[in-house]
């Protein structure tokens, strides 16, 4: 009968409208406005952090995981009407250039007193949360099979050995903080001119440069490649998961500080400040260390499992200002000279 059809059609129409309304409405907001975090560290860790933040403080935090370059681009693109409140975990060099562009807001969190002074921006634009050091990751299973008893590479120069051709994979500085940290590390170690020479020589052995920073480590863990340029925490994480990796720290290791910053004119600056105050505390930092294997700046947080203590590492003299100022130029040059 017609009425049956009519009812069906009307029902489905109304039903559709209802679903539309429900779906488009933003999820039920917490009592307070949520905090928007642009995070550069591991997505999974960020998720855990946000959930812990909500549990501890009652405020909702939403995040999106982006690579360092993406964050810079996004904040820049949004400068007329920023959508994010906090940047977290990004390389300092990029943060410096963002500071120079006036995209950040100074906030001297009380947590500053809990870490050594040199790990926080004197003007208050960023505050360090973790120390990350770089190194070389080698797949031990493949090494045994393909290199036998030969000694593993101990220095950066060892990587130039032709027997490693197409066996090395490295992150691209064009889109990852890891990559950028790596190349400036070489510049700080050797001086810029010799640094470029080194990179050119290494390029012969590199199969390709990955868009994301952690991809080389991941690939070496899976055995896709033999050697990767890596952040120590990425390698340690893989090791703890059971992958056959050896982490080597050559002399002259590049390093970085992951840090937190407040974005200028964000939608929820109070929430942003609250987040920064919280995330630099002992428990959240411990969580990051446990999950991410990054080194902590706080004295009351233990070392990640398997990590080499700081005193035993030979860190390069990282000149933050120089790195920030020359970033664009260096990247341009890299893009022109290295095609992989």
């Amino acid at each position: 009968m017609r009425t049956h059809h009519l009812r069906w059609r009307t029902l489905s129409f109304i039903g559709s409208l209802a679903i539309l309304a429900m779906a488009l409405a933003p999820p039920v907001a917490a009592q307070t406005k949520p905090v928007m975090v642009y995070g550069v560290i591991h997505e999974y860790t960020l998720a855990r952090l946000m959930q812990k933040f909500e549990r501890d403080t009652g405020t909702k935090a939403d995040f999106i995981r982006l690579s360092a370059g993406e964050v810079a681009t996004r904040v820049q693109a949004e400068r007329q009407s920023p959508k994010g409140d906090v940047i977290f975990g990004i390389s300092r060099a990029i943060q410096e250039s963002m500071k120079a562009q006036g995209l950040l807001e100074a906030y001297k969190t009380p947590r500053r007193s809990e870490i050594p002074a040199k790990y926080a921006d004197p003007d208050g634009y960023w505050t360090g949360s973790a120390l990350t050091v770089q190194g070389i990751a080698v797949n031990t299973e493949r090494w045994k099979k393909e290199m036998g008893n030969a000694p593993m590479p101990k220095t950066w120069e060892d990587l130039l050995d032709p027997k490693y051709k197409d066996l090395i994979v490295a992150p691209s500085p064009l889109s990852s903080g890891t990559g950028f940290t790596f190349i400036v590390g070489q510049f700080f170690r050797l001086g810029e001119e010799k640094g470029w020479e080194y990179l050119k020589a290494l390029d012969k052995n590199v199969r390709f440069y990955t868009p994301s920073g952690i991809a080389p480590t991941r690939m070496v863990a899976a055995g896709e490649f033999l050697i990767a340029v890596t952040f120590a925490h990425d390698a340690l994480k893989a090791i703890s998961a059971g992958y056959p990796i050896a982490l080597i720290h050559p002399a002259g290791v590049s390093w970085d500080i992951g840090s937190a910053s407040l974005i200028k004119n964000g939608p929820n600056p109070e929430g942003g400040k609250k987040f920064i105050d919280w995330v630099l505390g002992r428990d959240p930092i411990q969580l990051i260390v446990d999950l991410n294997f990054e080194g902590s700046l706080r004295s009351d947080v233990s070392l990640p499992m398997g990590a080499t203590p700081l005193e035993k590492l030979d860190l390069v003299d990282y000149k933050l200002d120089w790195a920030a100022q020359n970033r664009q130029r260096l990247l341009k040059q890299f893009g022109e000279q290295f095609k992989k």
Partner: protein
Amino acid sequence: MAKATAVQAWSGSSRVRALTRDPLGLLAIVFVVGCLAVFVIFPVVRVLAQPGLTEWWRLFTDPRWLRLGGNTFLIAVLSTASAVALGFLFAYATSRPDVPLRHLFKLVAILPLVSPPFVGGLAFILLFGRRGLVTYSLLGLSGDIYGWHGLWMVQTLAFFPIAYLSLAGVLRRINPTLEYAAQDLGVHGLRLFCTVTLPLATPGLASAALLVGIYALSDFGNPMLVGGAFKVLATETYTQITGWGDIGMAAALSAALLLPSLVLFVLQRYWVEGRSYATITGKGSFADPPPMSPAVRWVVFTACSLVALVLLATYAVVFVGAFARTWGVNWRPTLENFEYTVFRGSQLWNSIRFAGTAALGGSFFAVIAAFLVHRKRFPGRAAVDFAAVLPAALPGTLIGVGYILAFNTPPLALTGTGAIIVAAMLFRTIPVGYQAAVAGLAQIAPSIEEGAADLGARPLRTFWDVTLPLIRSAFTSALIFTFIRSMNTLSAVVFLISPGNVVASASILALAEHGDWGQASAMAASLMSAVFLLLLAFRLITGGRLRLFEL
């Protein structure tokens, strides 16, 4: 008396008058035109207007871009050729009743369509990578799948369903009597195939090639995962934005992809579509085609089975990876991977609600637009028609870049919201719903709608009582297709996500890039399951009278 009022000339403004008589119709036209102008045309214009002269100059002279352009072209040609060949194989196999398991092949052939396109890439690494299940654990091989050859394989498997669908339809419409006639004249076997079957299918082959070509050109996820050093324009657009912050260059690169896509699109729509050798006399009232020789039958069967096996393995491996603690190292089953990605994360729910909204809104919009363009007369109809199908030619990255540029500032500041993602999903898939509705409308004799009006039904009433019920199947197929495509879309939305509005597909890519195979697989498996379950539920609700993908 009547004579005095009688003879009064009518001008050609009777058309306009007809429009104003129907204010609701006029409103609908304005709405549709407005939406298409804002959400389809404007972003494209914005992208084309963004690059300055330097960027355009660089595009054509910088050796890096030229190389990438060459790469893109090369892989597109390769993948298209193999995808069409494979699609034809499947179409041929499923069209002959004497091929065993052909219903299984039908199902398998459309599997890649209901999953995110780059899951193929992910699974490929899991299966055939260094530590892949097949290459390492089973066969002990060592080889490198990164690069153009790996990408080629992955894209072939990912895109052949598109060719399959197009070709299956074509083959079905060829009158088998022609083959009987040829045999009667003494031609059979390979000669028959080459001189009769293949030529008849040629327009369909051309059409399929053009369709697949557009997909291959704009593929983003697979090259990211499997391409290695072999980079293509779509991924480079991504890098330009994420690494360099150079939106101008990204826009220029997107535009570079747009031109070949448009060419393919125009060719397919206006040149090939018209040349169909199909006999259009009713449906399926044909006799079965003549039987194949056993040798051919078994070759076809074996080939299809192999591919089917690979495909099924691909999806199986994703599910295996979802439950494995650490891929390649620790195979202990666990639910850990699901915990923070699915159970407590919002990404899957975001995908569902955005895709659902896009599907509902998009289907209504498509149906209304089709109705207006094909039942009403107003100036600029052809332009609206073109705008409604244009998105099919736009690469996903172009839409993404276009939307960030277009909707970042008031009056339409949509960036950072879920609405922009819904809009991108919705307008990206309009062409399918629109064309389905147009085909449906073409089957309604105009006199039926006139009959309703004649009996006293106003235009809206006619639309509701008569037109809508008669194109219901077009509506539902639009709904389903939009939903599936939107759930799985990546390239268009990867630039549009924001805190609280992350969708599953973007999350899978991020997780996979990080080497979190377990979580990536868990998310991918959940995404595919969600699509499958929702489709099942929908089918149950509507009583199973669905014609989905010609199944």
